[in-house]
Structure formats: structure tokens, C-alpha cells
């Protein structure tokens, strides 16, 4: 029997809702009735709604942000499975942030809310099933009491409790009121065995797909509030620049412009609440605000980063790698083993800064009043939105309501809530309900970019061809730049994940880091440093294999070895099973026809990686013609996420991550000159396009056990190296710098 996560102190209570239906909360906090305002609730002990309407519709509260990853469908699948209701009877309702003041801080009424680190499904897996199972159990008890039988004599069929002895069946809708009055059991009822699943693990269409194809889904930007004004900000085009002076005469003459004022950004080097200083324009329409902004004349104070450039950054990285850095991991006798090696192979790889660019630009509705604030935002982290709004308004967080909309793409951008802080600043200044709108240019030039870095990989091989020493040396702009209270010696931590393969597979192993400061803000971009590290490690393995006369797949399989759990202290641990990577690699190799002879100009490449608890491998088949034109002909992608709860969404995430990975590898790079981001929109920051993606594209789910992991990020790290390994196999051109850009044309033209 599963141990309960629900304290007995938290009751199952009923209360009428505006629709006349009843709410079954598990646990539902009803502070007035239950007298539980003391605020001693733990993170997972409070708050999830199961509502059953008089007509039997089961409305499941969705406490997590939906950014396209499918949680809005997957979480109700878990509840519906254990509750035993027909999937067709399920509807969902997006919940706001459930924040509750406690004696020593805040706690979360609806459990932890936020999606990042591919954690949304994994962290709710046990909880959501227990919610469903407990609700079913209470309905059975209510029916048993009504019929005068023992609960053990009752069972359920979708939407009904069955009491065979009395030959009766009672609809859940008729029992909810009684059930809601019962105390919760000491322990959660037993959960179903996997073999009994009717909903979990089966194909279910996305729950709000109809809304999406008819245009009725409300994203952040679709927020409409009576009396709402529209705001834009002219942000400093220079990193850490400030407003020296501005002329707003022409801007104020634009019909519809209501107000123009300065937005103070952070001091250089200070932690960020918002990214940039600027001038806000508030108007009666989005277009008027944008026109008003265009009419502003602003004199910028250039600030300390006005000479920053990525060219300089890359030169400095190269110079740094010629010196000694901070050794952050050092296994065995690295120097001795490298010195004794029969052969030493060294390569350097460059991974650029990249930007998130979800299709929905950043935006936020805010209405700041004297003692309260209402935020409606597309965000991955509603608690962060609450913190951001509190910081700029000075209001207590319990007085700030955070509503979450459907989110037009996350990819890590909306883990930070700078746009929420900006919106709150503007509403506070004007007193109006406002919607802050970012343009695409704002989004490209004001992002928390994936850090760029230069990686040096070096391996030592003994006379028997055994890999005896390995090092990865990285000079980069750390993601922890401008984090509060961040010591310099910890800056390496988000850039090198020490337990990643091949640590513990090579006895003498060293990681070395060099921090290169640059004014570009940095943040988490889908699978953060895994995208960089998988690219360099999986590229280097192919290069190393060639140098020592080994087959790249076989070299990997020999290193990875059999299935076994190996210590992994990073996110996604505590262990990692290299045999699961090997299994996927063998699978994709077979599907792509790895060993088959191919015509000149055509080749295959492979890569596999472990990210945040899940495993993925890719095989690409590409053609490169004599002019250096690349054609991706075929893709085989495979993911092992333990157990796929919502296979349709898992497949969609494999497809999406693969295509995302292709787009970023082919052409995406953020560069800086004179302290300014040079890219501005999709013409110079190109997303993947349909013609770049082959029709021959297989996405496979290989379940492994009964432990589901998240999937949002797992599928992206192997993409770039599988592609560039295939390019090498097809053309003999080794890509050591992303994006691929024109490198093939240039290499083959010469």
C-alpha cells in the first residue's frame, strides 16, 4: 500500500461553487471552515481540486503551467485513471498560484507550481494518482454508507460506484456531496497496478486541441481586461546602458499615447529584476504604444559594457585555454596518465550564445492597486512572478494574485519573470491596468541567453587502444552571472556537469573551467548545459574513434558497457544507467541501417545522452553535395523516459526537441558588437523551417520500467552531434563550431 502524502489534518470538504456543482478537494483548503489558517502545510499536502458537476462532468484543476509540453493532459490522465472516470467526461481548469502566508514565510496551497528541468510530470506522478485514488475511495465509502454495505463490497466502473450485493450503481455525481463530508483515510488507498491501466500509457489527444485549432485558447497576450491600457518599453540597445535623457514630444503627439516615463534598470553587476533600463510608453492600443516608442528620441549612457563584443569574447576564450584554469573535478592521476599515453588527441569546439524565441513574445497584464496587485502572465514559474511583482510593488505576496494563461512556448525563457516586474512597475507608476507587450526585437535583444563557450577536449590512449585519460576544459560566460551571493568559485557549476559521461568510465578524469565575463545576460535554455556538453563530447568521441581506428558506435558501446546504476549527483540523479544509453544507440543504429554501404556524399551519424533523468539517442542520415548543400534525409530518434504516461505528448516532445535541435544547430547564434546584440528578428535569428525537416522521421518511445521521467528537454542534446557526425561521415567536413551556417559551403568550395 502506498504511504499517504496527505496529512489527516487536511480534510475533504465540500462547498457550493458558482455553477452549483460541488468541489472535492484533495486536500482542499477551506481555511474558514477547517480552521487551518495556521499555515503549517507542506509542499505536497495542500490543494488539488476534483470537481464533479451535477451532470457528471469531472473538472480537474490544472495547477501547473502548460507551455506546450502536454502536462495539461497528462496530469488529468493520472487522476482520471485512479478515480475511474471516462476520459470523455474530463475537463480541466487552470488554477492560479496558490500562495499562503505562514508564520515563517509562504507555502503553496496547490502544491509546488512551476515547470522546468523536465520535472513537471515526474514530481506530480505519485501525488496525482493518489488524488484520483483517494477521491475514488471516498466515493465508494459514501455509496457503501448509503446502501448499508461495507466498502469492500463495492467497486467502480467509470463514473459509478457499483455495489453488487444490492445490485445497484450510483453515479459519482450523486455521491460527491456525501463523499466530501468524509474524513480522509490515514493512508492513501492502494494504487492500480500498471497492468490495469486504461488511460495512463494510452494515446490521448491533447485536451484543449479544439480550442487551439479554432483560435479560442487564451495566451498571455490575449488577456482582455476592462479599462486595460497597452505598454511597451524602449530598452537600452547597449548592454547595461542607461537613459541619459529623452525627448518625448513627438511620442506624446501620437494619437492614443497616454504617458511616457523612465524605467530604471538594475545597476551593472547587480542581480536582475528586470533586464534593462528604458523608457515606457503607455497608450490606448498596442499600435499607438509602438508608434509612440518609435517617435522617442533617447540619449543613452553607454555604461561599462559598451565595448563588449563576441569576437573579443571568443579570442579571450582561446587565450584562456592556453593557461591553467580552475580544476573542478580531478579523478585518478590525470597528469601521470596523460603523460604516459601512447596517443593524445585534442580538439576544440565552440558553442554559441543562443536565444529562446518562443513564438509568443514576452507579455504580462498587471494591475497594481494600493494594497493589492493582479498579474496575468504566461510564465513557467508563477512563484517567481509573485516574487518579482512583490519586489517592485512592495506589496506582501499574499496580496498579489498570479493567474497563469496558456503559454506560447517556454524553452526556459519564462523561468525568469523580468517582464512581470516591468509590467508591475508600469501599472504601479500609472495606477492603470496595463498589458506590457514585447516586440520580437525586444525578445531577441533582451534575453537570458544560453551561455556561449569554447571547449577543449583531450584524451589519452595507451598502446592497447584503451582510453586512460580524459579532460574537458571550458571557457565560457557562466549562467550564474549576476546571481545573488554567487562566489566566483561556483560559476562553473551550471556549465560542467561533473557526473556526465564519461566520468567514471575513464580512470583519470579532469574538468577545468575558465570564466569569461561578458555583459550578455545568461539563463536556462532547454536542457541548459547538456546541449553544449553533449555536442562536444559526442563529437569528440567520433573524432577520437577515427584517430585510434575504432568504429564510433562500437567505441561508445564498449565505454558504456552493461546496464548498471552509476552515481549521478546532478539533476536527474541519484543514479544513471549507461546501459540504457547503449540500448537506445543500438536501436537507432539498427533502424537507420548504420553499417550499410552508402553512396558518396551520404553518411550517417549517431549520438546518445542522459539528461535530467531521461535517455535519448538520435541517428541522422544526410547528404552533402559538392557545393556543400546539406540535406537531412532521414532521422531516427528514440527516447527512454522510464515509462511514457502520455505517449502522444512524449512523441510530440521527441519530434519537437529534434526539430528544435536542428534549428539551433543549423543557424542560431547571438553575437554582440559595441555592446549591442546584433540580431533582431527571425530573418537573422532563423528558426527551423519545414523544408529542413525530412518526412522520413521516426520518433520511438522505448519504455524501460515503471518510473516515468520528464521529457521536455531529454530529446535535444544528442541532435546537434548526431547531425554533425553524419555530416562528417557524408562529406569529411568536421563541424567544430555551431551553428553550422555556411561552413560546409566554405569548406567544400576551397
Amino acid at each position, binding site marked *: 500500500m502506498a504511504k499517504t502524502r496527505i496529512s489527516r489534518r487536511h480534510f475533504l470538504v465540500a462547498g457550493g461553487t458558482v455553477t452549483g456543482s460541488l468541489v472535492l478537494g484533495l486536500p482542499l483548503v477551506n481555511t474558514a471552515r477547517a480552521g487551518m489558517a495556521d499555515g503549517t502545510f507542506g509542499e505536497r499536502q495542500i490543494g488539488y481540486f476534483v470537481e464533479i458537476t451535477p451532470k457528471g462532468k469531472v473538472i480537474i484543476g490544472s495547477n501547473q503551467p502548460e507551455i506546450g509540453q502536454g502536462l495539461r493532459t497528462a496530469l488529468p490522465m493520472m487522476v482520471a485513471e485512479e478515480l475511474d472516470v471516462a476520459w470523455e467526461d474530463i475537463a480541466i481548469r487552470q488554477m492560479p498560484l496558490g500562495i499562503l502566508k505562514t508564520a515563517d514565510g509562504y507555502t503553496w496551497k496547490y502544491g509546488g507550481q512551476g515547470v522546468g528541468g523536465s520535472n513537471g510530470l515526474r514530481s506530480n506522478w505519485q501525488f496525482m494518482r493518489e488524488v484520483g485514488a483517494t477521491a475514488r475511495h471516498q466515493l465508494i465509502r459514501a455509496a457503501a454508507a448509503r446502501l448499508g454495505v461495507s466498502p469492500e463490497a463495492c467497486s467502480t466502473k467509470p463514473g459509478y460506484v457499483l455495489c453488487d450485493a444490492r445490485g445497484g450503481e450510483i453515479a459519482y455525481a450523486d455521491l460527491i456531496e456525501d463523499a466530501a463530508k468524509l474524513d480522509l483515510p490515514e493512508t492513501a488507498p492502494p494504487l492500480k497496478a500498471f497492468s490495469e491501466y486504461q488511460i495512463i500509457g494510452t494515446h490521448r489527444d*491533447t485536451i484543449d*486541441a479544439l480550442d487551439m485549432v479554432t483560435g479560442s485558447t487564451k*495566451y498571455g497576450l490575449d488577456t482582455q481586461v476592462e479599462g486595460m491600457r497597452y505598454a511597451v518599453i524602449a530598452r537600452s540597445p547597449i548592454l547595461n546602458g542607461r537613459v541619459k535623457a529623452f525627448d518625448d514630444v513627438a511620442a506624446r503627439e501620437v494619437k492614443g499615447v497616454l504617458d511616457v516615463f523612465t524605467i530604471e534598470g538594475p545597476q551593472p553587476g547587480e542581480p536582475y529584476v528586470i533586464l534593462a533600463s528604458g523608457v515606457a510608453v503607455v497608450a490606448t492600443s498596442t499600435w499607438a504604444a509602438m508608434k509612440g516608442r518609435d517617435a522617442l528620441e533617447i540619449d543613452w549612457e553607454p555604461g561599462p559594457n559598451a565595448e563588449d563584443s563576441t569576437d573579443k569574447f571568443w579570442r579571450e576564450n582561446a587565450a584562456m585555454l592556453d593557461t591553467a584554469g580552475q580544476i573542478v573535478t580531478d579523478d585518478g592521476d590525470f597528469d601521470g596518465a596523460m603523460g604516459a599515453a601512447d596517443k593524445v588527441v585534442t580538439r576544440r569546439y565552440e558553442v554559441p550564445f543562443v536565444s529562446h524565441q518562443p513564438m509568443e513574445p514576452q507579455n504580462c497584464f498587471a494591475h497594481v492597486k494600493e494594497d493589492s496587485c493582479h498579474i496575468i502572465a504566461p510564465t513557467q514559474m508563477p512563484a517567481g512572478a509573485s516574487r518579482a511583482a512583490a519586489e517592485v510593488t512592495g506589496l506582501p505576496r499574499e496580496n498579489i494574485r498570479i493567474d497563469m494563461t496558456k503559454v*506560447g*512556448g517556454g524553452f526556459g525563457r519564462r523561468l525568469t519573470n523580468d517582464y512581470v516586474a516591468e509590467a508591475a512597475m508600469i501599472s504601479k507608476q500609472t495606477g492603470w491596468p496595463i498589458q506590457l507587450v514585447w516586440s*520580437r526585437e525586444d525578445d531577441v535583444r533582451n534575453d537570458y541567453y544560453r551561455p556561449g563557450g569554447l571547449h577543449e577536449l583531450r584524451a589519452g590512449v595507451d598502446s592497447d587502444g584503451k582510453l586512460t585519460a580524459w579532460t574537458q576544459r571550458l571557457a565560457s560566460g557562466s549562467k550564474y552571472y549576476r546571481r545573488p551571493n554567487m562566489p566566483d568559485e561556483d560559476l562553473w557549476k551550471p556549465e560542467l556537469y561533473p557526473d556526465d559521461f564519461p566520468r567514471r568510465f575513464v580512470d583519470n578524469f579532469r574538468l577545468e573551467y575558465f570564466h569569461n565575463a561578458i555583459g550578455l545576460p545568461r539563463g536556462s535554455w532547454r536542457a541548459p548545459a547538456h546541449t553544449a556538453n553533449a555536442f562536444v563530447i559526442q563529437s569528440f568521441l567520433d573524432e577520437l574513434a577515427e584517430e585510434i581506428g575504432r568504429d564510433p558506435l562500437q567505441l561508445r558501446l564498449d565505454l558504456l558497457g552493461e546496464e548498471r546504476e552509476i552515481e549521478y549527483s546532478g539533476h536527474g540523479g541519484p543514479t544513471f544507467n549507461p546501459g540504457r544509453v547503449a540500448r537506445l544507440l543500438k536501436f537507432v543504429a539498427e533502424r537507420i541501417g548504420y553499417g550499410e554501404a552508402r553512396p558518396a556524399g551520404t553518411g550517417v551519424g549517431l549520438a546518445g545522452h542522459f539528461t535530467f533523468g531521461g535517455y535519448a539517442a538520435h541517428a541522422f542520415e544526410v547528404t552533402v553535395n559538392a557545393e556543400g548543400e546539406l540535406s537531412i534525409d532521414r532521422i531516427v530518434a528514440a527516447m527512454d523516459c522510464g515509462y511514457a504516461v502520455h505517449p502522444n505528448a512524449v512523441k510530440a516532445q521527441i519530434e519537437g526537441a*529534434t526539430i*528544435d535541435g536542428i534549428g539551433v544547430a543549423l543557424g542560431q547564434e547571438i553575437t554582440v558588437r559595441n555592446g549591442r546584440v546584433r540580431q533582431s528578428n527571425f530573418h537573422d535569428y532563423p528558426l527551423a523551417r519545414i523544408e529542413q525537416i525530412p518526412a522520413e522521421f521516426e520518433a520511438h518511445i522505448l519504455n524501460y520500467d515503471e518510473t516515468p521521467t520528464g521529457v521536455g528537454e531529454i530529446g535535444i542534446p544528442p541532435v546537434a552531434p548526431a547531425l554533425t557526425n553524419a555530416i562528417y561521415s557524408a562529406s569529411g567536413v568536421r563541424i567544430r563550431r555551431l551553428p553550422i551556417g555556411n561552413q560546409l559551403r566554405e569548406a567544400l568550395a576551397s
Partner: protein
Amino acid sequence: MISFSVNGQPVTFNGDDDTPLLWVLRDHLKLTGTKFSCGRGLCGACVVHLDGRAAASCRLPVATLEGSSVTTIEGLAPGADRLHAVQKAWLELDVAQCGYCQSGQIMAAVDFLERYPKPTDADIDANLSSMLCRCGTYVRIRKAIHRAAEIARQEGRRG
């Protein structure tokens, strides 16, 4: 004052002549199904039908619309039970992830299928290259367009 029609209804607009149709739809008519994304005609999220052909509404000044007929995603089908073949195919293939670009994708696909009722993959790639999706739904979009063509043919036969 500019007069035109949106989803069959007469509309007048007396704001700035250079206001893009996108913002007239979204801010003034409260039709938010048409999306803002790039503002430069580079991504297709704002595609509507102007006199029956796909057009990027972020690049269409309202002044140029006098007497024209605009259809948005909200007006594509008469009701949820009478969806357009493209919407039906989109549901069958469960194309959308975040869904933000999908209004534009669908409107562009409808126009495309009117011109290419039996498209090849190459036709799709050549004509819909500018329709961007950051979630990477292209594999399903391609399949859904073929499926929509099939549904349209079946419906044509029945009708």
C-alpha cells in the same frame, strides 16, 4: 473611416490609417485568435485570409482594406461541430504543442490546399517555408495537410 468585413460582418475603423490589420483585429475587435509574433511578416503567426488569400495581417495597414473581406481563424468554421477539413486533420494528427502559431499555420494551409488540392511534400515545403513553429510540429503539419486534402476530397464527393 475604413469599412471592410471580418468573418462576414461589416466593420468600420476610424483609428490611425497605418494601424496593421493584426492590431485592429486583436485590440479593437477583440478577435485574439490571430497572433502577434514577429511583426515583420517573417513568421506567419498572424496569417488571415484577405479576399480569400493568405496574408500576414501584421503587414497590412488598415487603410488598404477598404471594401475587402477578411476571414480569421474564428471565422474559418461555422461551429465546433462543423470544422474545416484542415482543422479536422489538425485534430486527428494532434498537431499543436504550445499552439501559438497554429492559427496562422491553419489559415495558411487552407489557402495552400485551395491552390494545391493534391499537394506533394515538395509543394508543402516550397509554399509553407515561411510558416514558423518553435515547438517543431512540422512533421505533423505535413501529415495533417495531406490528411486535410483527403478529407476535403471525401467531403467534396459526399457533398
